[in-house]
């Protein structure tokens, strides 16, 4: 049978046979889920659209509100946990709905293919509040493709120029990695430092951007 919780007696033979007789083909359910996503969008009920994309740094979960992309997550974060976080912090109206994320997915694909150097999709900053948000806004505009900045240099651009540690935390908890390039922030000694997607992903991105 399927992943449903039954409240009737498990030894109900009619239930077992009926469940088998009304077996649901995966295609039918997929079609209905796509329809639900479309109708939810039309009815202003799609608070958080999600989809996954493949990339050289592994599968990515993308999430967008009506305002813009609100979250990019690496598979190492656990997509289930990220969905729960979105439900708690944004809205529980979370549905797989790829269309809203088409532009972000395409631009990420171009970025990894070396055909794009900056992103042009609307961002929803609500998961980066306070000082962290300030840090990430600087990061989004001040450190261009191919360049790097130290945590200290980034801190110096903010309202708390000595908050190097807090800058490290802001980068490590960036809700919009890749789109907001926290991979370009490195330690003063030149070593890579922490990254939400893991050290290998950070190295890969820096290598990608160092190609001419």
């Amino acid at each position: 049978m399927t992943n449903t919780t039954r409240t009737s007696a498990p030894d109900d033979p009619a239930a077992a046979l009926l469940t088998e007789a009304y077996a649901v083909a995966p295609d039918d359910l997929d079609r209905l889920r796509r329809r639900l996503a479309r109708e939810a969008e039309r009815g202003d009920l799609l608070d958080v659209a999600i989809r996954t994309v493949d990339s050289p740094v592994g599968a990515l979960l993308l999430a967008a509100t009506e305002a813009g992309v609100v979250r990019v997550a690496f598979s190492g974060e656990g997509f289930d946990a990220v969905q729960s976080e979105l439900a708690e912090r944004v809205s529980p109206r979370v549905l797989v709905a790829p269309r809203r994320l088409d532009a972000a997915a395409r631009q990420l694909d171009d970025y990894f293919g070396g055909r794009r150097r900056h992103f042009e999709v609307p961002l929803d900053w609500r998961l980066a509040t306070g000082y962290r948000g300030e840090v990430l806004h600087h990061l989004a505009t001040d450190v261009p493709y191919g360049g790097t900045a130290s945590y200290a240099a980034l801190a110096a651009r903010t309202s708390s120029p000595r908050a190097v540690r807090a800058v490290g935390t802001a980068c490590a908890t960036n809700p919009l990695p890749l789109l907001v390039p926290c991979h370009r922030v490195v330690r003063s000694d030149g070593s890579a430092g922490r990254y939400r997607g893991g050290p290998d992903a950070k190295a890969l991105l820096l290598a990608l951007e160092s190609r001419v």
Partner: protein
Amino acid sequence: MSTAAARGPDRACEPFERVVDAHGATVLRVVRAVLGPGTDADDAWSETFLAALRAWPDLPAGANVEAWLVTIAHRKAVDVTRGRVRRAVPVADLPEPSGGPGRPSGWPGAVGDVVGSVAHVHTLDLVAAVAALPRRQREAVAYHHLAGLPHAEVAVLLGSTPAAVRRAAADGVAALRRTTSLER
């Protein structure tokens, strides 16, 4: 958009996607049993999950989600049936329904819909036999045996009594046994 701040800690906070994952198939089986497999069942499923999505942020934590969904599905199935009666225009004027030419989809003729996915004579027997049950028996069978709701909850849903629901479900299953291979 409802925000985390606007919701109390006693509200459901699961991502709705997980609800569709866990209960989508069960709700589809239930509306197919009540309405017949076809476009009516599809419409009822879509309306059910759209309404559930709308209400989801306000559902109290700890609620029985599947029972809640089946309650909505029952109302939507009733709506779909009413809509079908209202749209009772000559069948020839309608675009061909997926259930087959010349018949409203969702009724016994629509059984053909499942041939592709479950080419199984006994299954077709059973689906056709469910479709041939009187509505109350079909609902009692669908909500009790397929959705797993206790008789008392089905009674609330149908505006009936637990005893009447028990009888309708038993009569329905007995009729299915007579006409199909339900008993194996």
